[in-house]
């Protein structure tokens, strides 16, 4: 019998400053291409880059982080941040500001998105300290977090899970796949993301989005105040 609790207490703290600050450790995020001067838009495999006059604009929902526009002759400008989720859905009512339960649903992801979600309880991110809990039963879930492009076989389970959740509820699409189908969809086997069948309140692009990007989106859905870009060191 080991005294694991003691062992845990003796371990050095390694927690991110988020959401107090936006300070990032190296490797925490892959970063993302941002709008900027003309670059080689045609290297993009998913059409996420579009030349608009002298500028190249990024449709981040479609970016699969292939890094092609990062290397090569005319690279895009990359920003190493995490706060890139977006969405029109209203946050949950005030009562949810301090704690929510999240049902994670795999609708055909490649494993990386889920792996990043697995990291959320890790000591570096510790999502429980923010009052966010991952639950098995949709009956007690406030937020449905969907990864993957929604395969044919997962379409009905996805709808059933959403229906099984009590209101008020929000849907967060995590990853390029859930946002736009990513590299997989739409096709005969996959839909082009969650929005094809459910109202999506918040989208977290990225392939996969790093844990903090997901955390940021969840806090936004909870209606919590977030660090602004100026807070970044």
């Amino acid at each position, binding site marked *: 019998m080991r005294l694991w609790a003691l062992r845990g207490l003796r371990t050095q703290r390694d927690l991110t400053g988020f959401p107090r600050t936006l300070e990032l450790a190296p490797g925490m995020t892959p970063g993302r291409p941002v709008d900027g001067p003309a670059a080689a838009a045609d290297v993009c495999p998913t059409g996420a880059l579009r030349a608009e006059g002298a500028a190249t604009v990024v449709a981040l929902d479609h970016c699969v982080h292939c890094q092609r526009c990062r290397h090569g002759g005319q690279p895009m400008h990359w920003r190493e941040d995490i706060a890139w989720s977006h969405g029109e859905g209203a946050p949950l009512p005030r009562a949810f500001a301090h704690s929510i339960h999240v049902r994670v649903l795999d609708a055909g992801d490649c494993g990386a998105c889920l792996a990043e979600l697995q990291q959320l309880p890790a000591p570096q991110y510790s999502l429980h300290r923010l009052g966010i809990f991952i639950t098995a*039963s949709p*009956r007690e879930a406030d937020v449905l977090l969907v990864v993957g492009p929604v395969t044919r076989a*997962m379409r009905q*389970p*996805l709808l059933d899970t959403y229906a099984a959740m*009590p*209101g008020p509820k929000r849907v967060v699409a995590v990853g390029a796949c859930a946002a736009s189908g990513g590299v997989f969809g739409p096709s005969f086997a996959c839909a082009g993301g969650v929005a094809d069948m459910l109202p999506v309140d918040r989208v977290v692009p990225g392939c996969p989005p790093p844990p903090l990007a997901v955390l940021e989106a969840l806090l936004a859905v909870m209606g919590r105040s977030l660090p602004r870009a100026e807070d970044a060191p």
Partner: protein
Amino acid sequence: MIAFLLFLALCVGGGVITLLVRDRHAAVVATLFGMLAGLALLVAAAQTLGGDVWLLPLWQLPALGRLTLGADRLSAWFLLITALVAVPVFLFSARYLRHYAAQYRTAGAASIQLFLLASIGLTLTTRDVFGFLFTWEIMSALCYLAVNFEHLHDATPKAGLIMLVASEAGALLQLLALLLLAAHAGSTQFAAIAASAASIGPGVAWAVFALSFFGFGVKAGLFPSMGWLPRAHPVAPAPASALLSGVIVNLGIYGIVRINADLLPVAMPAAGVIVLLVGAFGAIIGILYATIETEFKRLLAHSTIENMGLVAMGIGAALIFRALNQPVFAAMALIAALLHLLNHSIAKSLLFLSAGAVDTTTGTRDLNALGGLIRKLPWLAGTCLAGCMMLAALPPTGGFASEWLLIQSLLRSAELAPVSVRLAFVVAGALMALTAGLALSAFTRLFAMAFLGMPRSPAAQNPTPLPASMRWALALLAAGCIALGLLPTYLVAGLGTVVGTLGLHGGGGALVPPFYAPGSALPGDFVSSFHALGAQLGSSFLPPPGLVLMHRGGTANPVVFAAAPAYLDLALVLGLLLLWLVVRVFTHARKLARQRAWDGGLPELKPQLTYTATGFGNPARVIFSAVVAPNAAHVEEETVARHFRAAIVRTERQPYALDRWVFGPLHGGARHIANAFAAMHHGKLNGYVAYALAALLLALGVSFWI
């Protein structure tokens, strides 16, 4: 006395008339007579309990002595139980027997039930050796006929035969015991036997005890001779089962109490210990089988074994206390036992009738094939729930009060001096606690598997409606379950006088003290401390005795234990109401959305994807596999094209534990022990749970010793 004779006349006359009328009407006629007879018996029992003790000497038979009838309070208590069971059972059988009409003569079953009722009444009121044995034999024979009614069915004759053989073996022992007593007294009259008891030597006393206890133990379904119960019950018609478990087994208890507490009060503590431990083993084995059984009626039969074990534990405790000069404790234990007997009879006949109702509406009693009946038969589900809660000892039913009293009276053993006796109590107490826990699981399972979830067969999907008369019979008994939960104080006070006739005085008063009487022996400030709890409520307008059940100890420790079942029930009802109100207030503005049960995203929840009764009981089977599942199941895998499994067929033979242990072959024991030790470390979590339990028991025992 007049009421009792009227009862006899109604039974016998009704039985004859039933045989004479057209078969179509037989069941209804028998029901009429049966219910009237039951009511007459109720009056007779109430009168006797109220003080009308009577003795009616009949004919003098050459060589066999005088036949005597008579009822004292002990008889009356058993008669009361009989009457309370008989009325609803006859009400139920009017329609129930109809579905036999195509194959059998229903008049047969109906009249047998009436004659059986008469013979039960006589058995409980004969006051001489010969009359008792004679009526007992008639009762046994009628019992056999009642069980064997469906004789065209394959399993029936064999089950009936086993029952008859067991019963006759028991009767032989009883005969010897009674003859020993009669020989010593030189008279066949019970009164004379009781008068001469003081001069009986220890050897004869032991012989009488052993012969009578194990002899009557057969009928009572006590360890180790209870194997006939689970065989006989499933094959008998539902009303016969209800009588069998609700009344007939009680006769065994009656015999034990009559001989060992009345005619020849047991003076050996060791004898009481035997009764206590026999009861404990019976209880635990019974409930273990009930926890894993999947046939509705057989499950109930195992539960009968359990409850008879509990009653025997109470009796055993009473015998020990009495032998060790603690008459008040003895009275308390016996009161608890007799109260439990009543509770069990009501609940068990209710459940056997429910089993019959399930059978008539769905055509099956296999719990694995039932499920979801609550949606189609809410009435049946409600009444069955009352019975299940009673046997699981849950408030607001009466089962709670009697089982609680039983446990409390066992705990009084702390006052006893001999360590070995206390050790026996520790073992018995632990087994009883385990029994109570398992009973909860067994009856949760019974109710859940029959009434909740999804119907697991087409039959369970479309049950036919339940006839009104059956519903009323069930409702009567269910109401009885609730009433018994509200009234235990009155019953305990009444039982005080019943056990008083056995020379055990003070029990009723000790359990239901004159709490608010002006001359109460309790300290005044102590009494007033109960006022804050509202314990005095009702003392001004309710008939005495009060609503609090407590044991008044000595002055140093004025209250040893206390409970107020009636208040508890009230609090329960109020609590539930309050909860409903709170939920209502907080959610009244919300819209109720109904979604199908969450099934993990399956396309459709199918019955074969939900728990079965076997599955529900399996943890118990695994943990207690030493008792209930000794034989490794036979598993056969069917494969096609070399590697592909097409099916796994699993069959198992599961001989009843006692057939194996007691009646089975005795050789090969050494090998089993060796194997058992080797198998101790099998790496299964469940096994270790069982070890932990065993270790706990051992530690408890040892710590008590030290």
